[in-house]
């Protein structure tokens, strides 16, 4: 099918984009990479009356380091992040997770802002941002506000962005390489497909290999990415061993927040079982890679 007709605007500043969102009203939509939106428009699952194209807002396309944070403009392409030396050094889990997104042509257009606002609970960047405690900077008619990744995703395909707001920046605490173990693991039907279940793990360790803090985000198990709080609590203060990894994985899968639906990709039972398998696999991989890098 073909998209329905729409008015088309190309603001070159955030201010202009916000004014257009106000003047065009509820039926207007931002277009960034278009990799989710245009597909939905082609199916007429989305029928915006106006498109506000932010691809000309060059000020929204950047990757910088500021103190202990990686600061990323909302229009930065997934591919740019994947190959960025700064991202690989300061936040390698993000670069790795992105390699799991679709296929190369999707990543050349898709943006970090687009995938966050699209809020698919199995999407790599949303899951990783929850594990990393990323902060989202949002511009609106009355100024800016900042939300934590944990508050940003409301439910399936719904973020906290209001219709008159623009996601402008993502801030991610950098990971100190010498004391961080991490991994991103998932299961999908075919290479390049959206994940059925995915787990992003970040362990902050001290010099003796004791886990100071664990952050584990799971996707595909609830309407938004969720943290494995019980597993995180179990790991904190412990030395990482195979048996504690297994215990943590069981706790992750038993969490009340793990409440998957069945769909044509997988049943709820399967997703729950895979939550344990992937948490265990992910923690093991994180620990093994960390030990190997010493």
């Amino acid at each position, binding site marked *: *099918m*073909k998209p*329905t*007709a729409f008015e*088309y605007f190309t603001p070159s500043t955030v201010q202009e984009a916000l004014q257009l969102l106000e003047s065009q009203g509820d039926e207007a939509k931002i277009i960034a990479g278009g990799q989710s939106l245009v597909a939905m428009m082609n199916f007429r699952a989305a029928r915006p009356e106006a498109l506000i194209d932010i691809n000309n807002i060059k000020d929204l396309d950047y990757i910088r380091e500021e103190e202990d944070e990686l600061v990323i403009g909302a229009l930065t392409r997934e591919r740019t992040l994947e190959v960025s030396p700064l991202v690989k050094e300061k936040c390698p889990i993000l670069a790795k997770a992105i390699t799991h997104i679709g296929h*190369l042509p999707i990543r050349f257009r898709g943006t970090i802002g687009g995938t966050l606002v699209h809020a698919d609970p199995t999407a790599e960047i949303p899951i990783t941002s929850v594990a990393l405690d990323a902060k989202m900077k949002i511009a609106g008619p009355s100024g800016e506000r900042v939300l934590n990744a944990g508050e940003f995703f409301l439910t399936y395909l719904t973020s906290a962005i209001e219709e008159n707001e623009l996601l402008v920046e993502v801030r991610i605490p950098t990971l100190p390489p010498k004391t961080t173990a991490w991994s991103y693991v998932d299961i999908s039907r075919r290479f*390049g497909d959206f994940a059925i279940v995915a787990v992003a793990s970040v362990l902050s360790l001290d010099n003796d290999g004791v886990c100071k803090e664990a952050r584990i985000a799971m996707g595909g198990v609830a309407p938004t990415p969720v943290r494995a709080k019980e597993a995180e609590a179990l790991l904190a203060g412990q030395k990482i061993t195979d048996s504690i990894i297994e215990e943590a994985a069981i706790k992750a899968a038993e969490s009340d927040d793990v409440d998957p639906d069945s769909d044509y990709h997988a049943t709820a039972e399967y997703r729950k079982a895979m939550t344990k398998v992937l948490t265990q696999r992910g923690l093991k991989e994180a620990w093994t890679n960390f030990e190997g890098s010493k």
Partner: protein
Amino acid sequence: MADKRQVKVKVNGVEYEGYAEPRKLLSDFLRDDLELLGTHVGCEHGICGACTILFNGEPIRSCLMFAVQATGAEIMTVEGIAENGKLHPIQEAFNEHHALQCGFCTPGMLITVYHFLKENPNPTEEEAREAVSGVLCRCTGYTQIVEAVMAAAEKMRIAA
């Protein structure tokens, strides 16, 4: 109906100017307005890869972009791969290794492989397999496509 906008693009080295409603997909603009029928359209939601083109040197799905967004861009479609009527080594290799049957996926395959071998002139078979996995082929089973990619890489290394 929204007003038509001017679209100016350079495709395979040739400047084109046309007019399109904002909702016109770049894939349809290439086919219907510029009459470049090499770019195929299979799914219109980014999955099949038949519509893959190079947009300022980067492979993208032309079905997930509007023509109006392409103004000022340099585009390469499958028609631009052969030079002076002579098949490109990738095309020769596809021919020699029977890497196509119905040919529907072939334009997307060729563009994908063209970009891939530019980035990675000496790939492993595994990397070649991963590169072409973003284009769906329902005929060949991919074995010959991967063989063709490896053969093309060798031809291009010798020629370079």
